[in-house]
């Protein structure tokens, strides 16, 4: 019984980093309607540069965090320019973006393929830049665990969970009550209508991209600082976990991401203990599939029962 509780709590705390990653993805995929497959590779390249700065030049953790966030934004804008600048020019894309379902037309399919090509490119740049498998990252993980009635809990994970919850609340309020948030919500609902209303669509899109990239960079730093290392698998991990959380919570729902992350974290923790690493991966994909087949509607708890972007 104690084991079950221990695993459940570990899964719950794992939801902190998952939700942080899912937050950036839900802004990119759900709000901006960007099918950006290069999202994880962007995080990987920035993390590799951070690791290099730390190891080679002895840059302190705060400097590494700032550098990772700045590079994530820079690479994110490179992907934005290469893949998405053209996609918004087409009337077809505007028509599709105004629809409720996230439909794909030929133009959007080519954007998806282009973002995949950039995924390969950015990942290869990262691997060529730092060819080894393991790279140290400033380790901020706690060395002492909380012992609470026989249950071990890591303070760093508790801190990340609380920070993520705060960030989600802040982002939700910003999107709901600020002028800029209103603009981004309008852009997400219908780009054509936003343009007709006199909103600066290009500026809003760039702000949304910057927010998504900053969140991605922040999430990378938080996750890697707890592990103290980065490997080439990090890019795929970011994309997969983030997307699963975002989809489980209802793509575009900022609060829903936390619910999705909790569900994913707890499921993975139990699957890992029951069936090992393959079982854990299968549980992640199975959950994603289930969310897609059953879903098209977000979690039904009153906390998540709200309109999108809140």
């Amino acid at each position, binding site marked *: 019984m104690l084991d079950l509780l221990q695993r459940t709590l570990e899964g719950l705390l794992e939801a902190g980093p998952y939700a942080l990653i899912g937050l950036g993805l839900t802004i990119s995929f759900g709000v901006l309607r960007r099918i950006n497959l290069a999202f994880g590779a962007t995080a990987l390249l920035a993390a590799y540069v951070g690791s290099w700065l730390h190891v080679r030049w002895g840059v302190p953790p705060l400097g590494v965090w700032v550098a990772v966030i700045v590079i994530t934004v820079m690479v994110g804008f490179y992907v934005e320019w290469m893949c998405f600048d053209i996609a918004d020019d087409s009337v077809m894309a505007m028509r599709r973006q105004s629809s409720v379902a996230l439909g*794909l037309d030929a133009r959007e399919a080519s*954007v*998806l393929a282009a973002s*995949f090509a950039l995924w*390969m490119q950015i990942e290869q740049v990262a691997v*060529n830049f730092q060819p080894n498998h393991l790279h140290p990252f400033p380790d901020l993980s706690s060395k002492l665990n909380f012992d609470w009635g026989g249950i071990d809990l890591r303070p760093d994970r508790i801190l990340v969970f609380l920070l993520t919850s705060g960030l989600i609340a802040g982002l939700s309020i910003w999107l709901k009550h600020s002028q800029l948030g209103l603009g981004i919500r309008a852009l997400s609902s219908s780009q054509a209508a936003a343009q007709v209303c006199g909103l600066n669509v290009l500026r809003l899109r760039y702000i949304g991209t910057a927010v998504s990239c900053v969140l991605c960079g922040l999430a990378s730093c938080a996750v890697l600082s707890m592990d103290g290392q980065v490997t080439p698998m990090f890019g795929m991990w970011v994309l997969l976990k983030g997307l699963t959380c975002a989809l489980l919570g209802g793509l575009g729902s900022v609060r829903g991401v936390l619910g999705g992350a909790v569900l994913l974290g707890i499921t993975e923790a139990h699957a890992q203990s029951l069936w090992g690493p393959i079982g854990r*991966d299968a549980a992640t994909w199975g959950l*994603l599939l289930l969310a*897609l087949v059953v879903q098209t509607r977000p979690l039904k708890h009153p906390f998540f029962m709200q309109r999108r972007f809140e």
Partner: protein
Amino acid sequence: MNNALCITDPGIGFYTQWIILALMGLSTWLVLLTGRVSLGQQAYFGIGAYAAAVVTVMFNGSLILALLVAWLIGVIFSAIISRLLQKLNGLQFALATLAIAELVRLGLSSWTWRSTHAKGYEVGPDGVHGFREIRWLFENQMGPETYLSLSACILLSALFLIWKISQTKLGLSIQSVGFDSELASVQGEPVAGLQTLTQTFAGGVGALAGALYAHQATYIEPAVFDVMLGIHAVGYAMLGGLATPLGPLLGAAFDLGLLEAARIFEGWRMVIFGGLVALFLRWRPGGLLNHAALSQIKHFFIQRRKPDEHSKFA
């Protein structure tokens, strides 16, 4: 330096690989034809490869029987998946296919069924180590040239079948679903049925590609049919163009050709290839053989034929 199939085989094997990748591209292209993007056609590739290998290695069946079984299992699995994902569209459909492909890969990664071959060594699926010793071609003295011819026959048959169907009302109905499924539905087309039918056929093509690969490479491991293969297949269809089934063939040739040409950039190939593909799609989103290009090619040939027709009556 490896291609999407993780092997680089010089000589005749290179052309066989091109055919296998072209079949994968064609499989993805067929799904794109129905207005959907599948990131999981590699699932059928894996299923086809394992099914064919089981027939020739575990049951000593012939290669033709193995190809038939692989195709049949691919078709059945594809029909089931297509029905399951019928209500999904756009990004949801793309991600659901990817999730299924990964589940298939993980399932085959944990499948173990070992038995002793007549020559004393162990054969059969071995979990994450894959399925090795698929030696039907060597044991039956089938040379690379014959195998290339067989592969080419399969590709040409698939292309011929697609071309014949495209000339019929069924072909036009499928195309109308791809252009605008809502409009097609209003016009009375059975949209879901047409999508299922096309995706079922696409699954069969992907399974054949896997079966051919397993026998050429003599092994198959789950890492071969990971997400990269599926996304490469989408890349081939998008690069080559959506207007004709020859598009994926061109896309695969483009990738393999560039791979060969870029040998001097060892280690930086993906950097150059990725950038070129992204820039190319920015410049020409419909791919090389898009509808405009196809129309220009047709116009060119019609223009050339006209003087001959006139001279006949002169």
